[in-house]
């Protein structure tokens, strides 16, 4: 669209105050970060949550939203290796950071050990909590390859599962830790 002189002038005049006065919801921010190993640059509404950004703008629907208030862990993504509730983060907060979603865990067709163990142990029922739990376990095992039972509980207590009763989930995580331990 051709810009009129007046419009350009108005913008210059308001430049200093634009960032604060312009409706925060409409001003687009240029966001650049690493998503599942790939560099991403995209215009984003600063008020959009990371969860909505990933699901709607990036089409990565493996990250789930269930409570929308940071209680259930369904929306976990790894931000610089730490599990974060993406429903409680705004998209611009991942500027220049590294984000991994459930879609970024498998290497091609080769599943991550934790994914594999979740399948083998029957730790998946409805599957809605599964991506978040797998990422929680991923972060836990990365920091601590041999967690005690208590450390597992600390690492996973931010995730709600309504179907399985957690027993098989814990088993899957412990077996994944064992297998990772053997590899090392």
């Amino acid at each position: 669209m051709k810009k009129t002189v007046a419009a350009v002038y108005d913008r210059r005049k308001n430049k200093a105050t634009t960032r604060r006065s312009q409706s925060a919801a409409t001003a687009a921010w240029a966001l650049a970060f690493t998503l599942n190993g790939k560099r991403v640059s995209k215009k984003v509404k600063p008020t959009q949550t990371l969860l909505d950004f990933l699901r709607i703008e990036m089409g990565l629907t493996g990250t789930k939203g269930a409570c929308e208030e940071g209680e259930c862990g369904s929306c976990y993504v790894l931000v610089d290796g730490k599990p974060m509730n993406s429903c409680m983060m705004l998209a611009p907060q991942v500027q220049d950071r590294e984000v991994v979603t459930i879609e970024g865990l498998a290497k091609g067709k080769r599943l991550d050990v934790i994914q594999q163990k979740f399948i083998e142990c029957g730790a998946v029922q409805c599957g809605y909590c599964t991506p978040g739990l797998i990422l929680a376990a991923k972060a836990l095992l990365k920091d601590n390859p041999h967690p005690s039972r208590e450390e597992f509980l600390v690492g996973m207590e931010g995730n709600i599962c309504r179907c399985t009763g957690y027993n098989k989930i814990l088993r899957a995580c412990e077996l994944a830790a064992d297998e990772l331990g053997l590899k090392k």
Partner: protein
Amino acid sequence: MTTAKSSSAYETGPMKVVGTGALRLDALGKVTGATKYGQDLFSKKFLFAKVLRAAHPHAEITGIDTRAAKKLPGVVAVLTHKDVAGTNLHGLIRRDQEALCSTKVRYLGDAIAIVVAKNEATAVEALKHIRVDYKPLPAVFNFDDAFKPDAPKIHAEGNVLGEKHLRKGDAAKAMSEAEVVVEDWIQTQTCDHAFLDLEAGRAKWDGKMLVIEVPGQWIHEECRLIALALGLPVEKVRIIQPATGGAFGGREDISIQIYLGLCALKLKGETICMRYSRSESMVVRHKRHPIRIHYKLGAKKDGTLVAAQIKFYVDKGAYASTGIAVMRKASSHATGPYKVPNISVDVIGVFTNNNPCGAMRGFGAAQTAIAYEGLMDRLAVKLGMDKAELRHKNLVKSGDEVTTGQVVPYATAVECFDAVLKKIDWKNRSYATPAPHLKRGYGVSIVCFGLGYGDGFPDASRARCRLMPDGIIEVYSSACDVGQGLINMIAQIAAEEIGVRLEKVRPVLADTMRTPEAGSSSATRQTYFTGSAVHIAAAELKKQLQDIAGTHLKELVYEIKIVDGKAFNYLHPGKRMTLKEIAREGKRRGYSLEALGVYKPPTMPENTATGQSLRAFVTYLFGSHACQLLVDTETGEVKIERYIACHDVGKAINPDQVIGQIQGGVTMGIGMALMEEVVKKNGRILNAGFTDYIVPTIRDVPEIECIVLENPDPGGPFGARGIGEPPLIGCGPAILSAIHDAIGKPIRELPATPERVWRTLAADHP
């Protein structure tokens, strides 16, 4: 192993697929994030709908002005009851709830208008511009107020939804003659299903049909309800079930289907999306019935039960939902697994201006179990008798009558109970604790649960099996996999019956255009009903395959066996034919290669005056739980140390998934017993979100030790029964029984939160 329905009498080898813990067929998509749930079907190109809810719990609507909202940029349409061409009514048993309210609202979740906009934010904004004028009416929020003769009427016909009575023997006389009588009350709470996958989906009028992709539990019934409400012929409505993240009864009532359907009809060609937020879901959707139960139990001095008099006071909420059926299930399970010759049960359900209450795992039987087991504990204390011994004395055995007068031919309550007592080492249980402020307690419970709807309802499931040209067996069923894993159950039964490997079976589930009606995924019925239908269809298809193979191989048809996808004469296996070859040959000969299985076991209605029926339910399920816990008497906190659950499942089609169901049910039971409660004030839910509505986390759940018994049921596929609800039903009473044991006082109001336990300890009364 031979079975009642097996088509071939020659198969005697061990089963290859049924009874194995085959991995879930849908697990790969779920661990990689590829599986599409309702909310994953959205696109920015689609329109978004949002619903305006009532501002008062009980009010007349005097005017709705949508003009300002319609003018908002980005708003495409604003719809009200005037836009609905059909009855505008829905409800599973009674059509008493308006999809969009016209003249009156009865609770805060009632819908008044729908905004369709270019995006969700605009739709949310537009809701604020709809003006609704109300004339507030006096409201009632509990049973007692609603039951008063002069109470404000919530429905025109009054506040009593219905009553249910059960009479067996002469309870009053037997009670007056009883040597020992215990009497108490119990108040259960309102629970939310709290499945993680919020109500979400999309709809489109594709030129010929209304296509709705929203998770439900009984898609054919939903089609009928949508068609009625919107004034469409039922064959113009198609539901395709997306992946579903849990249901637990919470998707039985219509959720967003009618709203989406209406929008799609009004905006033909457009795809409309919609999702609830967590708080909206909790405010709007039906819940578990809070029930006040008055229970009086009479026995002889030796502990033999002689009479039970029970009254249930049910807060139904604003609409009928499945309330009548829940009330009936409460009454028909009123004495659970115990033989009581004289019973009187009265159930009264009344409307209030609270959330409607309907189906939730346990369905009336869960509340009842808490009452009958609680009273058995009180009786044991009064008699000075061991509570396991008292239970043993009164358990139903094969050939005994249960509450409804139905004779149970194969009762395994005793086996289940003995198994948990042995596992927990009941006789040698120790009350020694690490500190004096900690008290240990042991609880037990026994479940006797009628499977299916029963009560004469024409309950049926249909399934179709088809051999595809590539040698794959497709199994079609409208059964909704809501996470419980019936996809494996169906595939494993078909694979076993036909004689192919599991990966050669492809289940096609829940699309009303393609799959035959299977009834609802509720009442613990899908393994029994749909499993049987698949078994029958697979057996029939197998006969067709044997026919073709026999003719082609020039062998006797009844000597043809199919193993690992190859047909051959089992007496002299030489010539073989693969399923792919059979498919080609069948096509050449013009054979159908397809079979429909219908499973429709009859039940008999309960007598309206006495609640008695020779066959109230198709079959009964038995189970038993034992719990060991510690109560901190300073804080009231409860820590479960050991949990054992034993269930007789007839035959575990997939033992791993059976254990998953047991552990999940117990966990939900832990939530119901110790923490979950929807807190309401004047009809408004104060904890509509996971911050305040507390469900069990990994920290609250101990190792759940499962014992799976397999006493085959003659009516189920390969002898299988079902497992969905009993684990939850057994859990609450076992925990409460253990708390009673630990602190010496019963908890009467659920859930047993630390505060309630502490207050019970601090109170003067017993």
